[in-house]
C-alpha cells in the first residue's frame, strides 16, 4: 500500500515541476540568506581573531596601550628586572607598497630570539632555510623582511630582491631575505598582506622609536603571581588583557550589529515559510480527488498525513542543501560588505576569509527543515480532514477557511498586542525588541485575509458601480479563494511593510545624522592629521603646524581635537580631547538642559562630557564620576553633560585639553578647526594651509567633511539595504509562485468564463486586475504596518542596540514606493498566467482539469 502511495505522490509531484521548483526555491532562498549572514558575520570576527592569534601563537595575555604605545623599557623591566619569561614584544604599523596596486601591508616587528614556546605566527614555517641563521640575519640586517611564499610570488619578488614601501617616514627600501609558508587557506589569507621584520627595522621604518605596540605573554593558568607582577609594573597608559577576553569584547562590541543582521536573515526565512506553506497547500488542494479516492481505498488519515509530511521533508532537504550551497556563495559576497562595515565602525579586519563550520551548516539544516515542517503542518492537517465521501468541492473548503479566518483574526490580534507589549517591556534586550517586530509582522500577516475580505467588498462595490460584472469579478475572485489569495497577500504585505519600516528608519536616521554632522561642523576649514600617534616627533610637528596656521592672514581662531584612548574600567575607552572656542562650543547638541557654567566647568574642573551611546551602554548619569587610569593612579572625572554623537555605537568620552595634559602625554592633534575672519576667501586660505601640510595632513572645507561623513553613513547601511532587497526578492518569488499556482489551478473556472463569452483580452485584463488588486491590498496594508515597524525600530531596537536616539522623519515617498512595489510585483506575477490562459482554448481548458 505504501508503495502505491509513494508512487502516487511521486507521479503527482513530477507533474508539477514548477510548483516543486518554486517551493524548493522558497526554502533555499530563506535558508541561504540566514546561512549567508551567519557565515559572513562569524567569519569576519573569526578572521580578526585568527589573524591576531596566528601572530600571538599560544599567548594567553597581551599588554596593550593607548595610541601612545608602550615604553620599550617596560619590556626590559619585565624581562630583566622581574625575570618574567615568555614575552613577545611587538611593533606594528601599516605601510603602503609602492608597486603594484599601492596595497596596504601590515608590518609586524618581532624579536626573533624570544622563547619558541610562544609559537607565534612567524615562528612557524616549513622550509628548511627558515632557520636560526635566517632569524639572525633578520635581526642584524637593517630593513630585511620576510614575506609569505604566496605574497612574494604575487609581487614577483625573489629572495634578496628589494622593494619600496611608503610610511609616515617617507619611502623606504626593504629587502626580502626569506619566505615563510603557511599550511592552510585561512592562514594564507591572513598572511597575504603581512610583512614580518625585526623590531629594530620596524621602529626605524615606522619611526616608532622608543615605543612598542604591544607585548604578548604566555601565563600558565596556575601562575597568578606572574599576572600580579606584571600588573604591578604597568604604567597608567597600559593595560593587561587576556586574549580570550579581547576576542570576547570584539564579539560584544559587534553584538547588536550581528543581532540586527540575523533578524534580517530570519525575515527572509519567514517570507520563505509563507512560500512553502502556499506551495504545499496548493499541492494538497490539487489532489483533493486523489486523496479522497485514496481514503476510499482505505488509506488512513495518518498515512495521508505522513505522505504530505514526507513530501515536505523531501522538498525541505533539497531546498536546504541548495540553500546551504547558495548561502555559502552569498556569504562570500556579504563577507566583504559586513567586514567593510565592521572596519568602518568597529575595528580593523585586515583580511576576512569565509570560514564554514559544521555548527553553522547544522543550524541551517535545522532551520530549513523545521521551518518547512512548521509551514506544512496546516496543509498536512487539512489533507487528513478531506473526507472520503465528500471529495470536497472548493466551496466547502472556502467556507471552512472563512470560519477559520475569524479564529485566526483573534489570534492575530493577540499576537499584535503581544508584540506591542513586548516592545514596551523589552528593556535593554535587543532580541526582545526584534522579537516584538516579528510578532507584530506575523500578527498582521495572519490578519491579512480578514482585512482582504473587507477590502474586496469595498473594491467590489466601487468597481462594480462603474464596470459592471467584469468590474466586480476580480474582487470577488480574490474573496472567493481567500484561503489562497490571503496567504499570498500576507507574504507580500510582510515583505513590503518590512521594507517600508526599514526605509523610514534609515531615512530618519540619515536625517538625524545629517543634522548632527551639520551642527557639529562650525569651523570653516578642518585640518585632519593622520599618522601613527606613537611616533616621537608627531606632537611637536603638530604644534608647529597649529602655530603656523594661526599666523596665517584671514584666520580668526582655531579649535583642536585629539581622538585617542584612555583606560576606564580596565578597558581602553575612546576619548576626544577638545580645545574649544566660542563658536565650536555651539557644535554640541546636548540631550538635556545645560547650565550656563558648563563650559567653564569643562575647561577648569576635573570633568568630562560623554556621548549618548556611552551614557546608554554604561548607564552613566550626570553627576556620576568616571575613574580614568593615569600614571599617578586612578583619577575621578565628573560627568557634567551628555551630548549627541553618531560617529560610533560604543560611544566615547570628551574632555578639555587642559584636563588631559595634566595626566597624559601629549600626542599632538587629530584635527584642527580653522575659523576664518568674515570676508576671507576660503579657497585661498585652504590653499595657503595646504602649503604647510605634509602627506599625513589634509585640509577640507566643512562641506567636504559633511559629504564624506554622509558617504560613510551610506556605506554602513549598504549591508542593511542589500539584505532588505534580498527579502523583498524572496517575497516577490513567493507572490509570483502563489499567484501562478492560483491561476493554473483555476484553468477550469477560467475555461467556463471563456465559454460563457468572455474574450481572451477580457480574461487577460481580469487576471491581471485580480493580481494587481491583491498587490494593491498588500501595499495599502503594508503602510500602517510599516509605520509600526519603523516606530519600533527607531524607538526600541536601534536605541537599545546602539544607544542612539533619533527623530522620526516621515517620508511620503517611501510609502508610494512600498505600494508601488507590491502592486507591480503582483501585476508582473499575473502576466504570465494571463497570457497562457488567454491562449488556451476554452474547451481544452475545461477538459484538462
Amino acid at each position, binding site marked *: 500500500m505504501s508503495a502505491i502511495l*509513494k508512487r502516487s505522490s*511521486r507521479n503527482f509531484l513530477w507533474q508539477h515541476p514548477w510548483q516543486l521548483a518554486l517551493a524548493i526555491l522558497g526554502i533555499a532562498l530563506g535558508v541561504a540568506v540566514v546561512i549567508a549572514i551567519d557565515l559572513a558575520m562569524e567569519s569576519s570576527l573569526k578572521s580578526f581573531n585568527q589573524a591576531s592569534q596566528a601572530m600571538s601563537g599560544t599567548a594567553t595575555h597581551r599588554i596593550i596601550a593607548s595610541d601612545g604605545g608602550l615604553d*620599550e*623599557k617596560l*619590556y*626590559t623591566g619585565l*624581562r*630583566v*628586572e*622581574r*625575570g618574567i*619569561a615568555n614575552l613577545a614584544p611587538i611593533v606594528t604599523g601599516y605601510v603602503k607598497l609602492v608597486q603594484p596596486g599601492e596595497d596596504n601591508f601590515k608590518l609586524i616587528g618581532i*624579536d*626573533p*630570539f624570544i622563547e*619558541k614556546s610562544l*609559537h607565534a605566527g612567524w*615562528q*612557524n*614555517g*616549513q622550509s*628548511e632555510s*627558515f*632557520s*636560526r641563521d635566517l*632569524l*639572525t640575519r633578520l*635581526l*642584524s640586517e*637593517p630593513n630585511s623582511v620576510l614575506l609569505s611564499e604566496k605574497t612574494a610570488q604575487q609581487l614577483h619578488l625573489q629572495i634578496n630582491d628589494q622593494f619600496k614601501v611608503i610610511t609616515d617616514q617617507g619611502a623606504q627600501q626593504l629587502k626580502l631575505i626569506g619566505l615563510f609558508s603557511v*599550511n*592552510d587557506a*585561512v*592562514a594564507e589569507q591572513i598572511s597575504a598582506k603581512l610583512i614580518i621584520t*625585526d*623590531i*629594530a627595522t620596524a*621602529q*626605524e621604518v615606522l619611526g616608532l*622609536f*622608543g615605543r612598542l605596540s604591544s607585548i604578548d605573554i604566555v601565563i600558565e593558568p596556575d601562575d597568578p603571581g606572574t599576572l600580579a607582577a606584571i600588573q604591578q609594573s604597568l604604567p597608567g597608559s597600559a593595560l593587561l588583557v587576556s586574549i580570550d577576553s579581547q576576542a570576547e569584547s570584539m564579539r560584544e562590541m559587534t553584538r547588536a550589529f550581528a543581532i540586527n543582521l540575523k533578524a534580517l536573515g530570519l525575515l527572509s526565512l519567514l517570507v520563505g515559510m509563507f512560500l512553502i506553506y502556499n506551495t504545499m497547500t496548493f499541492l494538497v488542494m490539487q489532489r483533493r480527488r486523489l486523496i479522497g479516492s485514496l481514503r476510499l481505498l482505505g488509506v488512513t488519515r495518518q498515512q495521508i498525513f505522513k505522505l504530505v509530511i514526507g513530501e515536505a521533508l*523531501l522538498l525541505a*532537504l*533539497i531546498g*536546504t*542543501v541548495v540553500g*546551504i550551497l547558495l548561502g555559502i556563495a552569498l556569504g562570500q559576497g556579504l563577507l566583504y560588505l559586513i567586514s567593510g562595515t565592521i572596519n568602518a565602525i568597529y575595528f580593523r579586519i585586515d583580511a576576512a576569509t569565509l570560514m*564554514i*563550520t*559544521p555548527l553553522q*551548516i*547544522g543550524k541551517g*539544516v535545522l532551520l530549513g527543515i523545521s521551518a518547512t515542517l512548521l509551514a506544512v503542518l496546516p496543509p498536512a492537517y487539512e489533507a487528513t480532514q478531506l473526507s472520503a465521501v465528500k471529495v470536497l468541492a472548493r466551496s466547502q473548503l472556502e467556507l471552512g477557511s472563512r470560519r477559520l479566518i475569524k479564529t485566526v483574526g483573534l489570534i492575530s490580534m493577540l499576537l499584535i498586542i503581544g508584540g506591542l507589549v513586548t516592545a514596551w517591556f523589552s528593556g535593554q534586550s535587543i532580541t526582545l525588541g526584534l522579537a516584538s517586530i516579528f510578532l507584530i509582522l506575523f500578527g498582521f500577516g495572519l490578519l491579512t485575509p480578514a482585512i482582504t475580505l473587507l477590502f474586496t467588498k469595498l473594491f467590489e462595490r466601487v468597481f462594480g458601480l462603474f464596470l459592471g460584472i467584469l468590474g466586480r469579478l476580480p474582487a470577488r475572485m480574490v474573496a472567493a479563494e481567500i484561503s489562497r489569495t490571503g496567504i499570498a497577500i500576507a507574504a507580500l504585505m510582510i515583505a513590503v511593510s518590512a521594507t517600508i519600516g526599514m526605509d523610514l528608519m534609515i531615512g530618519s536616521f540619515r536625517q538625524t545624522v545629517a543634522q548632527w554632522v551639520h551642527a557639529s561642523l562650525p569651523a570653516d576649514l578642518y585640518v585632519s592629521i593622520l599618522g601613527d600617534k606613537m611616533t616621537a616627533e608627531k606632537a611637536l610637528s603638530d604644534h608647529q603646524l597649529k602655530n603656523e596656521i594661526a599666523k596665517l592672514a584671514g584666520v580668526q581662531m582655531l579649535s583642536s581635537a585629539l581622538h585617542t584612548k584612555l583606560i576606564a574600567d580596565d578597558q581602553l575607552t575612546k576619548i576626544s580631547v577638545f580645545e574649544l572656542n566660542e563658536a565650536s562650543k555651539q557644535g554640541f547638541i546636548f540631550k538635556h538642559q545645560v547650565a550656563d557654567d558648563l563650559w567653564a566647568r569643562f575647561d577648569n574642573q576635573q570633568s568630562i562630557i560623554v556621548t549618548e551611546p556611552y551614557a546608554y551602554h554604561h548607564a552613566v548619569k550626570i553627576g556620576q564620576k568616571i575613574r580614568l587610569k593615569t600614571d599617578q593612579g586612578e583619577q575621578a572625572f565628573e560627568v557634567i553633560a551628555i551630548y549627541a554623537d553618531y560617529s560610533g555605537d560604543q560611544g566615547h568620552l570628551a574632555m578639555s585639553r587642559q584636563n588631559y595634559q595634566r595626566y597624559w602625554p601629549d600626542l599632538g592633534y587629530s584635527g584642527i578647526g580653522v575659523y576664518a575672519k568674515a570676508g576671507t576667501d576660503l579657497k585661498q586660505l585652504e590653499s595657503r594651509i595646504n602649503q604647510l601640510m605634509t602627506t599625513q595632513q589634509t585640509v577640507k572645507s566643512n562641506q567636504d567633511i559633511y559629504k564624506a561623513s554622509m558617504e560613510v553613513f551610506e556605506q554602513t547601511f549598504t549591508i542593511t539595504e542589500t539584505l532588505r532587497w534580498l527579502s523583498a526578492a524572496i517575497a516577490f518569488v513567493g507572490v509570483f509562485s502563489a499567484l501562478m499556482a492560483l491561476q493554473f489551478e483555476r484553468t477550469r473556472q477560467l475555461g467556463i468564463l471563456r465559454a460563457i463569452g468572455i474574450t481572451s483580452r477580457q480574461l487577460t485584463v481580469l487576471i491581471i486586475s485580480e493580481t494587481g488588486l491583491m498587490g494593491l491590498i498588500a501595499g495599502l496594508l503594508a503602510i500602517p504596518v510599516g509605520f509600526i515597524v519603523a516606530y519600533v525600530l527607531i524607538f526600541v531596537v536601534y536605541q537599545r542596540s546602539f544607544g542612539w536616539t533619533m527623530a522620526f522623519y516621515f517620508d511620503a515617498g517611501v510609502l508610494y514606493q512600498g505600494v508601488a512595489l507590491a502592486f507591480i510585483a503582483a501585476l508582473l506575477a499575473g502576466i504570465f498566467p494571463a497570457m497562457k490562459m488567454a491562449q488556451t482554448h476554452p474547451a481544452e481548458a475545461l477538459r484538462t482539469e
Partner: protein
Amino acid sequence: MKIKFLIYGLLVALLLVIGWQFFMPPNAKVEDVTSPTAKQKNESFSTVLSNENEGFARALSPREFSFPSDHGPHNDFRSEWWYFTGNLKDRQGRQFGYELTFFRFATKAGAPDSKSVWRSNQTYMAHLTLTDVQGNHFYTDERFSRAGNDLAGASDKKYQVWLYDWSAKTQGETDFSLRLQAKSHDFAIDLLLTSPKSFVLQGDRGLSQKSREPGNASYYYSYPRLTTEGTVSVAGKQFSITGTSWMDREWSTSALSSEQSGWDWFALQLSDNTELMFYRLRRKDGQADSNSAGSLVLADNAKVALKDNDVTIKILDSWTSPHSKITYPSRWRLAVPSQGLEVEVDPLLGDQELNVSYRYWEGAVSVKGTKNGQPISGQGYVELAGYQ
C-alpha cells in the same frame, strides 16, 4: 525509486558537507623554526668561530689586562664568553654540578647607527645546567637575546654580565664577591662566589694560541678556584650548598683553524690547592694537534705552563648519548709526568650532554689519583665540543 536515490544522495551530500568540516585537520603547527635541525646542532663552535672576520680585531700579541674593564665586553672581537662551572654539595653531602655561561657573538663589526635601541650587532647566548647526581638528572636551558634595549649585555665599569634575568653581578665595589643568579622552569641557582686565589693569565701572558695561523688565538684568563655558597633549586626543592667554582674568560675573533674539529677541555681543582687546566684540540683527520695546551696553578698562584707533550690523556670509556646518538669519551687517565701527577677523571653522570642550539657535553667530574706517589683527589669540569 528515483526519489529514494535522490534523498539518499542528498543525505550523503549533506553528511559530507558536515563531515568534511570535522575531518579537516586542525590548523596544525609545524616544527619550531628557531630550534635548529640536527645537522645545525652538530656544527660546533668551530663553525661559529671560523666565520668571516672582516672588520674585527684579532688576538695577535699579548696585551695589558686591566680590571674591571676587561671583565666587560670586547665588542671589537667576534666572540666572547663568561664561563662559570662548579661542584657543589649540601650539608648532607648531596652533590650538584652547575654551569652558567654567557656568550657574546657579534653579528657584524662596528656599532650600528640607528635611533632604535633594538638595533644592535651584539647577540648574547646563555647556557644554564645543573647536574643533580643523586637525582640522576641533568637539567639544561638556554637563552638568546640581542644586546639592544638592555636585554643582555656586560658592563666595563664593574663585573656585570646578564641576559634577561640571568646574571653574574658583583655585589660591591670590588670584583668579588660575585653573585650568579639564573632560574629556569624547574631548576635554579643563586650563588655567591668569592676569590681566595687570584686570576691566572692563560697561554702567553693571556694570549692563548689555538692554531698556528697568527690571530687564531684568544685572550684568556681564569679564576681557577672560587669559593661558592648559596642555593640550588631542583623541581621545587631548595638546597643550601657550598662548593668551588671555576671561571673562564675568553674573547677572540677566530680561534680554530679549518682543520680543527673541536676540543676536550679539562678544568680540575685538586685537593692540594692546585688547579689543572688543559685543552686538547682535535683535528678533523684524527691526529693530535700540537696547539693543545694548558696550565697548572700551584697553591701559591704560580703558573706552570703545559704544552701539548707535557700531558698524556688516555680515554678509558665512552658514552653514547641516547638523545643525539653521538659517542663521547667518558673516562680518562690524565697524566702530567713532569709534575708526577696521574689522575683518573670520572664524570659524576654520563648524561651531561647539552642538547641546545649548539650541542656539546659539559659535565661535572670527580678526580682521583696520585701526585708524587701520594694519593690526591679533586673535582672539576670537562667540556667535549665538536663531536658528531
